[in-house]
């Protein structure tokens, strides 16, 4: 839907509240992703840990909700019984508020919905709940509005891509950038199947 059509439909009340919210969240999340693609500086030097010395500490209620959102999508050391790192440990919250990502301006659209669901189920804001309760809230929100899944996906990126820190890659056992695997154990070094062709091409 083009923005002109959108505003025309808003003006003529053809869009209901759910469609309106869906459109706004989808558009704003994708704008944020484009901002990420265009602007974020996230390269790490091969072999060098760039674990930030400190991550942003949440102060306001909104910041605490964002922290809780990240720590629910990919629970960190404090929430994971195994003590393994998660989104907040690789400073994902910082990236949620990083001006280059621009996602912070979209959060006011999403956080009220999340906290409304948290209050409906448990009578508290998201950040006041335990992990199981937070997970239940975010799953309910995802059922109501599938597009928040894109925000959850955004939260996973810094951890699995290694944008600010190698902690996620180290946890996963991915060496990341390297100098190659020549003469190392990368192949089974034997035929693994019968083949249909003589040279790799079908006739």
């Amino acid at each position: 839907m083009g923005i002109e059509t959108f505003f025309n439909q808003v003006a003529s009340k053809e869009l209901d509240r759910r469609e309106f919210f869906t459109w706004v969240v989808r558009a704003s999340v994708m704008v944020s992703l484009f901002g990420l693609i265009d602007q974020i500086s996230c390269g790490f030097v091969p072999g060098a840990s760039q674990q930030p010395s400190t991550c942003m500490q949440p102060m306001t209620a909104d910041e605490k909700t964002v922290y809780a959102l990240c720590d629910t999508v990919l629970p960190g050391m404090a929430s994971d019984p195994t003590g393994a790192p998660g989104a907040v440990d690789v400073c994902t919250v910082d990236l949620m508020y990083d001006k280059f990502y621009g996602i912070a301006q979209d959060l006011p659209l999403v956080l009220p919905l999340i906290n409304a669901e948290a209050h409906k189920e448990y009578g508290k804001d998201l950040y006041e709940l335990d992990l199981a309760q937070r997970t239940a809230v975010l799953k309910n929100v995802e059922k109501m509005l599938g597009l928040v899944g894109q925000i959850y996906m955004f939260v996973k990126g810094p951890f699995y891509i290694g944008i600010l820190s190698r902690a996620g890659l180290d946890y996963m056992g991915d060496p990341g950038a390297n100098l190659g695997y020549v003469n190392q154990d990368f192949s089974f070094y034997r035929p693994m199947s019968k083949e249909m062709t003589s040279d790799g091409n079908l006739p």
Partner: protein
Amino acid sequence: MTTSFDAVIVGSGFGGSIPALRLAQAGKKVLVLEQGRVYTETDFKQTWDLKYLSNIMNITTSDDYAVFFRSGMVLGGGSVVFSGLMNRSPSETFQFVDYNGYKVWPDAVSRQVLDPYYDRVEQMMSVRQATWEEVSKTGGMFAQLMNNAGLTCDRARFPYINCRECGFCEAGCIYGVKQSLMKNYIPQAQDAGVEFRTGCRAMQIMPSAAGYTVQYTGPDDTLTSVQGTVVIIAAGAIYSPELLLRSKQYLPSLSDQVGKNFNNNGGLRFGIELPDGLPSIECYKGRDSAAVMTYAYWHDYGITIEAGTSPAAIFAIDIHRPGESGWGLDFKHWAKSVYPSKLIVANIMGPVTGEGLVYLNNDIPAVSFPLTKTLADYRDRVIAPIQALTKANNAILLQTMGTGYMYSIDHMLGTCRIGDDPRYSPADPYGQIRNYPGLFVSDSSSLPCSTGVNPSTTVAANAERIADYIVTNW
């Protein structure tokens, strides 16, 4: 600065650099305009850093934000950022009839016709079949799964010499062992006198007395005009139609088919979680393509499948077990449990009617790629044998998007397609835009349909064929 050429070519990927060399060898004065910059081994980085990648790729989404598309935006185009799998299209591909009953490939193009051009491309780019020693464990394990089910899996063909298996082919090969166009066609074209201007974005094409005028913005944002007796558009399946649509006021007889028939080569991505008890496949090791390709489903289902190695970044997309969530504590622990030992990500490819559309939205190219009934039927049909394969191996078929499968993002085709019927094809069988003699299209946008396999070799062979036609007739 020279402003008059025998041929002006927009784009330096397979569709652009190949005609550039062939026309220069025929004594023509050739200019290539490339929007991207020059990147060499010393400039490439072994990282999936999106800021870095955005320097060498165009990344865009469908207009409903559901599908991402990426294409090369660097001197050498897609050859610099592709995974390096270069198989020929099977013969049956060229007989594909869409649901309108239209045979999409022109009669002038067949596997037999293309074979001599495939030969040229393979010789130029040192393409050969991988040995089993060069197949990564991911590829070997995928082949083993096929074998366990009584099915075949072949070693693929690729353009590598002494590969280090580092896993960053699509970020640009820092070792220079992937034989991209930067290793063959482009330097030979430069030696033959072709002028490459980088950082130059073509804006409009206008007919002129000598042929066509191409206006472009250079690195300093100034608008420059050049003349070409022949103009070849080779900016890819999104940006070639963009240029033509933006020039429509000067090309009023342009076919209304420009931008239509967009398809993604039937690309559908899925994952396999291997059962316990198998050796670790260390799935981050090897080229981005695992160097295997199965044709076992080609004759019954019209699809091929390639397996790929996987960095941990794969979990940033929505890969997960069916019925389970793609986030949360359980997801995090599951991801750790399958990585890097038990996860295979693979890509299905096959002919399907192209129903997508590239159009201009406020002068910016936009892509409509809805999940149509055709695509949904295709998805359901081609997933069925994969479900059987995983079941036969006690493996788990993983989903890659919500409750379904992610359409793959790299192989865009069909938006300025060649064909026999002017009603359905903006270009004639030799890539010449109808009603505009001397204006050609020679890239992935000219291929009318899925190639059945990774399309780069067929794009290249078709560009060789079109170059032959231009040299002979212009």
